């Protein structure tokens, strides 16, 4: 197991290198804006642009720039400075990270609880009205775009512009460290909105898996042995049916920790997603690079975590 984890960790390092390399190459190959020209302003003469390009190190070949970037990153954990505001990228990322973690973690709890709960209920009562209603609702949840859902929620429930003003709306996010209660209330609506489609998808997936598993021979054996239905479902059925959910959950959570752009935008939550979006729009390569690396980091580690978790969930899985 330890060897397996070490091997995977090596792959993580390799993967992060690959991601950073691809990001760099994409930035140089695609027609994004020229940071030196942007910085120089209108009617900038070639000498000024060249001077700024030199100052920013953009006059070096891309592989030299990349090497320098990686050197600073590895030896000093330095992501460089934003071209836009001169603020260290590390500072920008760490100031945004708590908001993204808050949003993703809270939503994840919500969608797991709802998704798994609804999935189990639908699976143990197949073809009933409850099953059909919950799966129908799940379809609607999957189909509703997050951005649209967020706006609808704001116009219905936000305390400033909502028809039924019961929850804090956009622009109300407060860091946990400042005011835990306000933090919680400000995130209720974003959590719900973000969780809807995930919960819907998870419930449909789990229903399908669990229905199939509950038809297996070993489940019939368990029932024949006189085990209670609860024990059959939770101990024998769910444990087997939930493994695909765990896989997807790892990926989803990793992606969201790297930034939930749409939800953060609708509710004006200052997270990584909005930071990465604005840096892309402004061709701010150091920030783009930093946020992409962070996203990749979360995804690969979430995957690793999930794979390790498999061994505990499913006794048949053993890593050599």
């Amino acid at each position, binding site marked *: 197991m330890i060897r397996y984890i070490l091997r995977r960790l090596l792959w993580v390092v390799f993967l992060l290198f690959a991601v950073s390399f691809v990001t760099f190459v994409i930035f140089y190959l695609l027609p994004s804006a020229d940071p030196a020209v942007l910085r120089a302003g209108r009617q900038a003469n070639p000498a000024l642009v060249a001077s700024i390009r030199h100052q920013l190190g953009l006059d070096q070949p891309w592989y030299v720039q990349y090497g320098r970037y990686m050197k600073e990153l590895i030896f000093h954990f330095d992501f460089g400075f934003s071209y*836009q505001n*001169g603020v260290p990228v590390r500072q920008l990322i760490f100031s945004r990270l708590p908001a993204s973690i808050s949003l993703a973690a809270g939503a994840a709890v919500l969608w797991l609880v709802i998704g798994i709960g609804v999935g189990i209920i639908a699976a143990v009562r197949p073809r009933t009205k409850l099953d059909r209603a919950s799966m129908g609702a799940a379809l609607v949840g999957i189909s509703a775009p997050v951005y649209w859902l967020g706006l609808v929620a704001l116009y219905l429930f936000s305390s400033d512009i909502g028809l039924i003003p019961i929850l804090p709306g956009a622009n109300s996010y407060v860091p946990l460290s400042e005011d835990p209660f306000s933090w919680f209330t400000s995130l209720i609506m974003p959590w719900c909105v973000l969780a809807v489609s995930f919960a819907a998808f998870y419930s449909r997936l789990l229903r399908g898996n669990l229905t199939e598993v509950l038809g297996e021979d070993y489940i019939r054996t368990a029932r024949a042995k006189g085990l209670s239905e609860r024990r059959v479902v939770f101990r024998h059925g769910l444990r087997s049916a939930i493994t695909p959910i765990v896989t997807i959950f790892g990926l989803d959570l990793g992606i969201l920790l790297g930034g939930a752009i749409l939800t953060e935008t609708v509710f*004006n939550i200052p997270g990584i997603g909005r930071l990465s979006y604005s840096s892309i729009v402004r061709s701010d390569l150091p920030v783009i690079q930093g946020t992409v690396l962070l996203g990749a980091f979360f995804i690969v580690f979430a995957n690793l975590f999930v794979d390790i978790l498999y061994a505990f969930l499913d006794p048949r899985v053993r890593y050599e």
Partner: protein
Amino acid sequence: MKSIRFCSAALVALVLSLTAVACGSSSSNSGSSNTVGDVPAKQSLTGKTGGALTVLASDDVDYIDPGAAYYQFTFMITSATQRALYSFGPDDSVDPVPDLATEAADVSADGKTVTVKIKPNVKFSPPVNRVVTSADVKYGIERAFLPTVANGYAEVYLGDIVGVKDFTDGKATEITGIETPDATTIVLNLSRGTGGAAAGALALPISAPVPKEYAAKFDAKNPSTYGVNQVATGPYMIEADSKGALTGYEPGKKINLVRNPNWDRSTDFRKAYLDTINIEEGNNDTTVAARQIIKGNAQINGDFGPPPAVLKEIFNSTPDQLALTPSGGIRYVALNTSLAPFNNLNVRKAVLAAFDREAMRATRGGALLGPIANHFIPPDIGGFEEAGGLDGTGVDFLANTKGNLTLAKEYMKKGGFPSGMYTGSDELLMVGTSGGASQKAAELAATQFEKLGFKPKLRLVTADTMYTKFCGEPKAKVIICPNVGWLKDFSDPQTMLDATFNGENIIANGGFNSNWPQLNVPSINAAMAKAELIVGDSARNKAWADIDRQVTAQAPAVPWIWDDNPNIRSADVAGVVNKFNGNWDLSFTSLK
């Protein structure tokens, strides 16, 4: 200044600031006839002292460093935190008032010397805490030429100061042409008689003082970190710790202004009623943000205008919460005059004649968002009336705002296309901005070209990419730029025409060309060279108005709107608009 919103650093602004407003189209030829929502000629400047104001913004400032700032929204903040030599009061968009200066700049008759006396009793905010001297103004200007600061307009208006080249080349440690004979006098010595424009530029944040002994260590970094360690001279400062490091600025999240303890009300024309101003950034959904303001959950808008539907609601239901003011800007579709088929004057005239400019204006929101442009100097800037005002210069190809296809075909025939239609088989590269109203305008513009048989090949990219890699780069050989525009830097017509239509200013080979049509007419270039040396507003306005007529006659671009800025406020705010900047004036706005 506001060129930033239209060109280089702030694509964001281009996309977000002058937001489209679909409040119904206007049949008027050239003016937004509404008076509802218009800012009165004289605003009430009395207010209640105290309170906190919440400003909603969709994005961050372009640069927090006043020496690099070049964007309306940023100027909204710097005008409250920094005292330039001159500043604009709320009701006068043309003539600045002495701010750090004691009186109007003394420009020598030959335009080669500009002398300014400054007030002796203005102090820097903590941690500097000392009286401002002329040496601080000198350093403020000098550092703007540093590549680590990279001011976007220093070279344009102050590049003629003697010694600038040696300074930027690293051969001199200071600009020798800026003299400070005593602590309250600063003299700019220019190599050419461009003192008129140089004096105008002193109303921009570049002339705000910067204490060298404090800032030099930050300016030595790459890029300069003075912006996040700045000190203030205005009534407000960005919240900072005891060492001067800003704690009230988090890029994309917030800018918190608090009172500057060293500000002396008796030295300033600003009222500074508010105690604190909290700018909350990241409100990308401007529909929600605008509604929050109107309902009173936030108080004024920063860098965005309400989107069409919301503006229509405000216009109809709570017009007293709306303040429309000319931006001093123009939008146009640039035709590359250096390449076929638009190197043919008659073909260009045909395009302008055919264009339905009312439809173009409707993409942004119709008449409420400003009059249809008929030439290139916008309203409220010297030279506008002299160039023909709202009615235009009188050229026939801009007479019909809905387009005149018959006239257009006549021009095509004169241009060598006997059928009146373009018969070339080549596709014309057209590069526009993706998303929002800009994309709509680009797509509509493409259809206007098709009316005459042109085959535009529309490519949509981000605004920054459009400017820096395509339209601002002659080597890219873009034929049509449908989403370009320009705003005044200050109230001088030269700021509207020189960078944009002077053939001498076409910049290739790695610079940033703002003459998007690449218009290069020797007689116009010569007229500009002469006009920029003129001292005195009246003569300057007349000369530049003549140039505007000449440029318009060359049909280098399709002018289609002189933008108005829609500002909104909550009911509990006594809002005061700064007409020069087109935004709320934080130093005069108060709570009711």
